[in-house]
């Protein structure tokens, strides 16, 4: 699914978080949204997902303004797993709450795809590690075979080894399942590894865009400062 955003503005109370965003998310490509904390990255993907209403501008999904959000899924920053449900019930949530019981085979297959051991099938989220939670959340996001998957800082809070594993997983999923991916990250290494093209947001505006493989060659001063780890003031 191709998503085109034109002059998007979004405010909370009187503060504009997204001031004027125009970008295109290409079908079956991996688009990376980069930027410092608080620049509006999460608000942007939640607005594309229609979790927030837009204040002005437009979002077109394959040329149409309306979309069935069942075609989307999201991996949240900290997993957002449901504490009171078992791992299997979390992954197959949509079937579980509709009293369908034949989801075990599909859950096992997804657990295998994301590298989870079958032994955690009946455990609760509080009984597994942070890395495992991310994988479970990833499996839940894949359960409904989405056309577009949104990844909100997929490697945040993980050690370098687990970060690499999650990045490999993202790559595997994008190529194997042919989905459109939109990832938010601070992590330049992840962006280069998993992305096709990138957009750099600063203070609610897109300051730079381009090919992920050429991120380090950017000429944009603010983006360069961001890559170098400088504290960017709004």
């Amino acid at each position: 699914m191709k998503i085109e955003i034109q002059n998007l503005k979004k405010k909370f109370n009187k503060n504009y978080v997204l001031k004027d965003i125009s970008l295109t998310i290409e079908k079956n490509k991996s688009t990376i949204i980069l930027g410092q904390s608080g620049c509006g990255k999460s608000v942007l993907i939640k607005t594309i997902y229609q979790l927030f209403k837009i204040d002005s501008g437009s979002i077109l999904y394959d040329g149409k303004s309306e979309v069935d959000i069942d075609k989307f899924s999201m991996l949240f920053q900290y997993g957002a797993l449901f504490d009171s449900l078992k791992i299997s019930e979390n992954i197959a949530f949509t079937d579980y709450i509709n009293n369908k019981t034949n989801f075990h085979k599909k859950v096992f297959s997804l657990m295998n795809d994301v590298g989870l051991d079958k032994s955690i099938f009946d455990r609760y989220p509080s009984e597994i590690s942070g890395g495992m939670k991310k994988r479970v959340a990833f499996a839940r996001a894949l359960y409904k075979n989405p056309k577009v998957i949104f990844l909100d800082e997929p490697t945040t809070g993980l050690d370098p080894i687990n970060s690499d594993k999650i990045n490999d997983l993202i790559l595997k999923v994008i190529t194997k399942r042919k989905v459109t991916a939109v990832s938010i990250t601070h992590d330049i290494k992840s962006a280069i590894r998993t992305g096709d093209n990138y957009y750099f947001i600063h203070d609610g505006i897109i300051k730079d865009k381009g090919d992920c493989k050429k991120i380090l060659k950017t000429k944009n001063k603010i983006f360069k400062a961001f890559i170098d780890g400088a504290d960017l003031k709004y």
Partner: protein
Amino acid sequence: MKLIENIGNIQIKLFSNLGKFILFIIFFFRYLFKPKFYFKNNLYYFGKIFISSIPIIALTGIFSGMVLALQSYTGFSRFSAESAIPNIVVLTLTRELGPVLTGLMISARVGSSIAAEIATMKVTEQIDALKTLNTNYYNYLVTPRVLSLTLALPIFVTLVDFIGVMGGYLVSVHRLGFDDNLYLLNTLDFLNLGDYLSGVFKAIAFGFIISIVSCYSGLFSDKGAFGVGSATTNAVVVSSILILSSNYFLTELFF
């Protein structure tokens, strides 16, 4: 100038919250009759609320009945009207103390837990996750809790009434020297279905108040640990005040 601005801001916040709360109730009734009804979820919450509340309900009932008998004796013995104690115990419990004390205890026990649970779900993006999974949070979170508590509270009040009367009986017979058969006969004689039903009606109203206020406090909480704490406090304080104030109007209704 700053003071007037602050007063104005507080008023705007107050009325905006009131408006949001009224809309929340309207949406609750709207989604109550929409087809998605998670029966398993409803049953789970009813069981959870019921089992977790029984001990405090029993303790509330027994001590209220015991104290009521002792205090009534202190007053009535001054003009030789001790025989009215069984009547006073059963009437006070069924019409007033049963529903009000149960409501206050349940708002502290269950209301706070509902608000904290939903506020934590909000902070950890579980509410957003529900939306992304195309699940209406009114149907999945609000309806089961409101229905369970609204249905459970009349049962709790019936238990408090019964256990309270037994508490009064224990104190009256074993501490104040009443005849056991006479005490029970007086209680049954004086027990009126109308009195009991007025208490049950109050319980239904209080159950609805506690659950809807707690769900609202959780869903519209601020972010972070402070938000969860405030949501819990608001749920208990607001529902307790609403229980006490609505109790007057409901009592007028059944007067």
